[in-house]
């Protein structure tokens, strides 16, 4: 079966406030100065990336009742920084993570529609949900949502914003100076939306943006998350970075699209991955091992251990074996504001697996943490990394990647200079932007008002 050559999509993740970002390296710059955002964004645009991606968390993380102080901390406001980055770039997509629990649809719709205008059609929204009262303490709403209500609110939130985006068709402003008609429709922007989570009505005050609706990204991996993505998202982040699990995830999610009347190409799968480049593969492997040790210090290893064990393990030796005591089962009271903690659904079983791993490979506590917290990483010479990335895409383990560099702001410089040209030579990555909007870059048609489906006929033939 011969398939057409797929084009790879690439995004640059501004380094996050977690231990993937190495701040102790001499090359590490500011995580908050605007110049860092300018550097990363301009590098990504020079390399013809699809978009820049920003994560967000609305409360500083805590562990053991104290603000977590080992990782980079401190982020800008997502909308504001993206609007400023729009001033120093021309084509790069601008993707922001915005929480559907601690915002209101009217305001978020205004902000995304405004960002889309101010960037001439480059806005994207990574829709996330919160579950915790901990984060809620910073907001009017307070409280928290039950786990099962989070996706319901997210879905209703997204639908509500779509009602608002679609309340202007885009041709209402005539501004005819002769006749004195500014608007063609006296009722433009009118909406009324009543569902269990929202009861809103009135007239939306931002005219339709160049993309109609911003590109929708989604990161959840649960059953509900996959359905949400299949029904509503334009692209999905996954954590399934290996070839095998990537392919399984890819086909699982893509197979769900038909149920929503959507085509195979209407949802892109973009796993978040890291990379390490070297002059030789061995050199790259050596660098990668060093980076992992920078990312997981002895102190950091203990903190990860505490997150699973749900106990104070501050006296434990990170260079010794895993603790003999078992994890405390029940509500996790150690770590707050961290999504990963919820992934430990059966802490004792996870601990058993970690012990097996430690025994099999003769690993210390720190070495175990280095192994189990590693993401998919592409390690090698630029040629090898280009080849592997392309293999992932051509064999349907993904449609592209969100690259998470470990250094701010120069972490994708080498990738842009060495790997991208090789992908371009292979004809699997653009050498110039063909369109102006992010939807153009991603090959996604504008989603229409009436059906919520593609207006145009899918992606371009190339």
């Amino acid at each position, binding site marked *: 079966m011969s398939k057409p050559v797929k084009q790879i999509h690439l995004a640059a993740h501004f380094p996050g406030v977690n231990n993937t970002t190495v*701040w*102790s390296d001499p090359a590490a710059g500011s995580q*908050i100065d*605007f110049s860092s955002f300018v550097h990363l964004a301009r590098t990504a645009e020079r390399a013809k990336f699809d978009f820049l991606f920003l994560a*967000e*968390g*609305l*409360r*500083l993380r805590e562990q053991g009742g*104290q*603000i977590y*102080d080992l*990782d980079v*901390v*401190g*982020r*800008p*406001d997502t*909308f*504001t*920084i993206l*609007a*400023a980055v729009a*001033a120093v770039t021309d084509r790069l997509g601008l993707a922001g993570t915005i929480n559907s629990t601690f915002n*209101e649809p*009217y*305001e978020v719709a*205004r*902000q995304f529609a*405004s*960002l889309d*205008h*101010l*960037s*001439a059609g480059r806005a994207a929204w990574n829709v996330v949900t919160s579950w915790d009262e901990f984060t809620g*303490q*910073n*907001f*009017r709403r*307070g409280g928290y949502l039950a786990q099962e209500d989070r996706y319901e609110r997210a879905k209703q939130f997204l639908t509500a914003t779509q009602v608002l985006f679609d309340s202007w068709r885009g041709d209402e*402003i005539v501004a005819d*100076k002769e006749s*004195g*008609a*500014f*608007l063609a*429709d*006296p*009722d433009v*922007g009118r909406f009324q939306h009543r569902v269990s989570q*929202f*009861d*809103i*009505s*009135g007239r*939306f*005050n*931002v*005219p339709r943006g160049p993309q109609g609706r911003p590109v929708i990204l989604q990161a959840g991996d649960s059953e509900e998350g996959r359905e949400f993505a299949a029904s509503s998202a334009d692209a999905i982040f996954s954590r399934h970075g290996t070839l095998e699990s990537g392919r399984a995830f890819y086909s699982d999610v893509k197979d769900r699209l038909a149920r929503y009347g959507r085509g195979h190409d209407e949802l892109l799968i973009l796993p978040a991955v890291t990379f390490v480049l070297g002059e030789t593969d061995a050199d790259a492997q050596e660098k990668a091992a060093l980076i992992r040790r920078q990312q997981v210090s002895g*102190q950091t290893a203990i903190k990860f251990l505490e997150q699973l064990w749900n106990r104070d393990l501050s006296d434990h030796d990170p260079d010794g074996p895993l603790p003999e005591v078992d994890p405390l089962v029940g509500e996790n009271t150690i770590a707050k504001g961290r999504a990963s903690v919820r992934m430990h659904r059966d802490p004792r079983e996870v601990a058993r697996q970690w012990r097996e791993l430690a025994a099999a490979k003769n690993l210390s506590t720190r070495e175990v943490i280095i192994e189990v917290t590693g993401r998919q990483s592409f390690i090698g010479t630029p040629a090898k990394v280009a080849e592997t990335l392309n293999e992932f895409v051509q064999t349907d383990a993904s449609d592209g990647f969100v690259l998470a560099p470990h250094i701010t702001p120069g972490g994708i410089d080498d990738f842009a200079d060495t790997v991208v040209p090789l992908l371009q030579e292979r004809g699997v990555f653009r050498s110039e932007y063909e369109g102006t909007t992010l939807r153009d870059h991603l090959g996604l048609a504008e989603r229409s008002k009436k059906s919520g489906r593609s207006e145009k006929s899918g992606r371009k033939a190339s």
Partner: protein
Amino acid sequence: MALPDRALPDPALRASAPTGPTPLHLAVALDGTGWHPASWRLPEAQPQGLLTAAYWADLVAEAERGLLDLVTIEDSLGLQSSAPFEPDHRTDQVRGRLDAVLTAARIAPLSRHIGLVPTATVTHTEPFHISKAIATLDFVSSGRAGVRVQVSGRADEAELFGRRTLPPLTPQDIGRPDVQALIGQLFDEAADYVEVLRRLWDSWEDDAEIRDAATGRFVDREKLHYIDFEGAAFSVKGPSITPRPPQGQPLVAALGHQSVPYRLIARSADLGFVTPHDADQARAIVGGIRAEQAAAGRSHETVHVFADLLVLLDDSPSAAVARRDRLDELAGAALSSDAEVFTGTPAQLADLLQEWQQAGLTGFRLRPATLPHDLEQITRRLVPELQRRGAFRTAYEADTLRGLLGLPRPESRYAAASAAASATVPV
């Protein structure tokens, strides 16, 4: 360009400035195609540009060429309306706009010196979000950010959020005791909101980020502070997720037309915009704000009071009047405004500003009737006239908005508190 560029500053004027009049501060209020409802119909108007970044960048560049202290950018949650408390269904005026904070952020990297003060509605929005948004505006502008806090009492704007219900009001209702009580509540909430903004800006001490490789700590968590605000409308725990911005606390501004908002200006703001119609009214308003300021224990702090004026400026008085008549004819009604409308020459306006300045005002926020005409009259005619009189700067003298307004960079209240606490430890 029809107008000559602003004359280069004359060193002799600068030398004579210390003995001359006190320099005044100038702001321009940007809104749509200008403040006259028919401004969009003039040949020079660019109504199709209102949703583009370039339109706003050009206006701010012009304001910056005129060495103005700051621009404000109007905003509202609801669609613009000619009625004060409800939407209208007019199709003959500019409708639709962009979020002002995002617009300010979009032009920040394209400007160097001028202050950027977008409007933010505080009645339905989250102080945590606006705090980090304005802090971020301060980062991307290198210390030129402010925010004008705006209260919304409109029932239709409450319905956009669906979180609370406000009664439909008409202008005749304003005097009713229950309505006055509601207005009082909304302004108290705004004061709480500003308090939360400032606490969150202070919640990271300036030197909280330590990057201490020896101990593995990125931040000194003793220098990150919970703000623990508990108010009638909201509680906020903190700290902010955004570090302390370059100005420490960006500028807070508010517009007021009566005593309740004057109290907000006096208690909470760094800059108030007021709407007197003559010098005596200006004197009374400034006196009222200074009294409230003293009552709030802020006499030692600088609170600027700028008068708003809607301006139509031309080389001759008759040309200005003719232009106003033409605009009124297009609008089908005489121009009316909460602010005094000035129609005349830039030199006449300079006379008026200097006269009103004697009433205690520290500056003016001018609302150009049409754009770019009245803005260029300000930057290319009014400013040189004031410079000749020694009443306006001839070059930007500071890098931050606080610097331009002569406001100090505040120390974090929490740093001050911990310094005080450690000072009391016996040695």
